[in-house]
């Protein structure tokens, strides 16, 4: 009897997803344990059952339909046969990863008024041990029991009535759960938080907008820092060797009228690297000083130990909304490369320190200023991917210009604090999208897969040398119709290998896992989670 108990205990210990297991995600490619599949932010899987030869035989294995109408932006996680995913606005479901049948659902009751700029969305959960974590649109962080969905703790992260919300997937680092906030269109003062995953007590907070007297505060004037924006709504990466959390910071507030906030406005539009134990800033790189175009740096950092000019170096690859692919030194934040990956008309180059040189007459104006890229950028929050097999960096890119207007901006708590509503889709020039593969050593394009419309979803690569991506943008000419193809490309040359029309908005990222010996490819579309496998 005692040995049976020990065996059970051993099994339980094995079955638990420990923080140590999260560090070694390569050892368990059948699982997908963090938002980007690993701490490195690669969105790359070592599974290869679905490969260039077999991918055209993919069939729908199951569909899970959410009883919701909001846009799905979630990346599901899979741990040992159980899938955990968020449903908009702030619900969580656990499913059998083999059949798509739900085990339990956590439904969050929300206040009537929610202050979100762009939909009551959620990008995913975090899992560790027997816990599942979700950030909610009413700005709470909630820990649930992974077996039942029971609430273990529920802590307020910020005041929702002042425009804070949580939409990004949390990230587990050691014994902490890390979460960012949204609210850059509501004049929040942004931050990144770490909570004790057992108790929900806050360990540290890094304010992305420094208060007077703190380093970086000289880049603000007056009281503008109080409502300076700098949200952190996309999950970052973790470098365990250097114990660094690397995260992206969003736009300064108000978005399109910078008159009230002269200065560079640190750390808006920046990559920040924080000591994981203390939350202290180790380095930063600001992609756009004094941004007036809403070009958030809320992208997934891609961490690669690679060669730089013949020498091994710890690097960060970053495709930013403003249209440039960057390579930064991961130890110091030093700027190594900035190369346009899409059409842009705002940047005339970089100084030796990596500060962008702005072209003249690019600011928003009352009558409107045309500029490439448009407000939604040349890429956005959806994930890029890096494949160690091809050595290429992949991303979803937009070729588009926008009309930037400038108007009044007055801070009223809970109201939008933005300065205008720019024109995103120009009727005569709606723009188009592409999947692009870049050589990260140079930023040069290796291939592209063009699309008629501008997609809203990221990419996944696998050891089968396949890239999964999708269309899913709005069709031009105000037709209010979408194209919604989910497709597979050859990761080496971009050749299309397979596609299916899923018929609904795709504003998420593909992921993959394996259950009962079958590799599953997952893509949310419309209200459904679609899982594909070979017959």
């Amino acid at each position, binding site marked *: 009897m005692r040995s049976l108990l020990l065996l059970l205990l051993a099994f339980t210990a094995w079955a638990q997803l420990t923080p140590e297991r999260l560090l070694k995600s390569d050892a368990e490619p059948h699982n997908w344990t963090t938002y980007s599949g690993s701490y490195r932010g690669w969105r790359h899987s070592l599974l290869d059952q679905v490969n260039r030869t077999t991918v055209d035989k993919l069939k729908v294995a199951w569909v899970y339909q959410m009883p919701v109408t909001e846009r799905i932006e979630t990346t599901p996680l899979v741990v040992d046969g159980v899938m955990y995913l968020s449903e908009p606005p702030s619900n969580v479901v656990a499913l059998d990863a083999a059949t798509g049948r739900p085990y339990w659902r956590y439904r969050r009751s929300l206040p009537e008024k929610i*202050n979100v700029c762009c939909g009551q969305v959620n990008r995913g959960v975090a899992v560790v041990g027997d816990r599942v974590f979700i950030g909610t649109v009413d700005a709470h962080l909630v820990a649930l029991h992974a077996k039942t969905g029971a609430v273990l703790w529920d802590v307020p992260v910020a005041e929702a009535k002042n425009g804070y919300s949580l939409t990004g997937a949390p990230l587990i680092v050691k014994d902490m759960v890390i979460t960012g906030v949204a609210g850059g269109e509501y004049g929040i003062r942004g931050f990144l938080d770490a909570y004790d995953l057992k108790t929900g007590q806050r360990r540290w907070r890094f304010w992305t907008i420094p208060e007077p007297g703190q380093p970086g505060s000289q880049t603000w004037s007056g009281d503008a820092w109080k409502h300076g924006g700098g949200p952190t709504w996309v999950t970052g990466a973790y470098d365990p060797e250097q114990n660094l959390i690397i995260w992206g910071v969003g736009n300064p507030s108000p978005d399109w009228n910078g008159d009230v906030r002269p200065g560079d406005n640190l750390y808006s539009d920046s990559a920040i690297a924080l000591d994981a134990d203390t939350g202290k800033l180790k380095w930063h790189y600001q992609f756009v000083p004094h941004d007036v175009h809403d070009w958030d740096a809320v992208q997934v950092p891609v961490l690669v130990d690679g060669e730089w000019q013949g020498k091994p170096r710890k690097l960060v690859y970053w495709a930013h909304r403003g249209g440039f692919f960057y390579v930064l030194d991961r130890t110091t934040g030093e700027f190594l490369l900035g190369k346009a990956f899409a059409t842009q008309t705002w940047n005339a180059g970089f100084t030796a320190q990596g500060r962008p040189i702005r072209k003249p007459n690019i600011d928003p104006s*009352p009558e409107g200023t045309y500029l490439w890229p448009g407000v939604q950028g040349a890429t956005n929050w959806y994930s890029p991917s890096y494949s160690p097999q091809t050595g290429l960096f992949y991303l979803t890119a937009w070729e588009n210009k926008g*009309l930037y*207007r*400038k*108007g*009044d901006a*007055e801070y*009223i708590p*809970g*109201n*939008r604090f*933005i*300065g*205008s*509503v*720019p*024109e*995103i*889709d120009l*009727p005569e020039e709606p723009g188009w999208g592409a999947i692009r593969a870049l050589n990260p050593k140079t930023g040069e394009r290796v291939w592209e897969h*063009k*699309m*008629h*419309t501008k997609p809203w979803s990221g990419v996944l690569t696998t050891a089968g040398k396949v890239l999964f991506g999708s*269309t899913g943008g709005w*069709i*031009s*000419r*105000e*037709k209010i*119709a979408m*194209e919604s*193809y989910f497709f597979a490309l050859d990761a080496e040359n971009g050749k299309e290998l397979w*596609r299916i029309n899923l018929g609904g908005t795709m504003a998420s990222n593909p992921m993959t896992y394996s259950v009962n010996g079958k590799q599953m490819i997952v893509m949310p579309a419309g209200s459904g989670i679609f899982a594909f496998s070979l017959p």
Partner: protein
Amino acid sequence: MYDVACETSQKDIRVSIYTVVWLLATSALAQNASLRNPHTTTADVAAGARIYRSHCADCHGMTGQGGKGPDLTTGVFFHGSSDAALLKNVSDGIEGTAMPGQFFSADQIWQVIAYVRTLATKGSAKPPEGNATRGGMLFASRGCANCHLVRGTGGVSGPDLSYIGSQRPTEQLRRAILEPNALVDPAYWQADIVLENGTPYRGVLLNEDTYYVQLLHPANGLLTLPKRDFRRYVVQKTSAMPSYQGKLQEAELQDLVAYLWSLQRPRRVE
């Protein structure tokens, strides 16, 4: 569904009646038609215009002509035309639509409303000269109905004109008859396609994606054609409608415009 009313006592019914009366009273307050815009001076209108241009024009057009959002030049609003309804909808946004809220203080929103009211005077409030009945007969006899649907009758290769009087000012109606290419609704752009095998197709471009073009073809109806088979593909941003310049007497033109103007959307009772 379990019927709760079966268990309701008389006292409950009395309470319910009071509740209904109270709800009606408060609802009347909410819909208060007597609520009037307190900010209507020239300066208010100018301030409202500035906000309108930076925050509203993207969807409703620089002159309120509409685009992604509805036309604001008619003075009739789908979700209520009273000052109270406009204040609520501009302040809070409109649930289930792309209309956002939460931008400005009430004073500033009143200024925007004051400006939006000035846009409506450019609309079609005044009936045009001309005889609508005669215009209706011309509409049937001069080929208009071959392409245009009016309340269930007519063709479908041109825009549905069932409520065109609420959607376009008189001058635009007149101009559209004489110069169809002056203002072409992109929803009626023409796809001009020749397949690799030489087969030509020309029709209303309904949709285009990465792989296919969909069109409404005058003879073949709804078609989906694969782009990989195209030899030629041009989107004609001009109208398929012939100009009636010189084909109608001035009096006939006025009658036709009067008929089109008479096609008004029924107003909501507020």
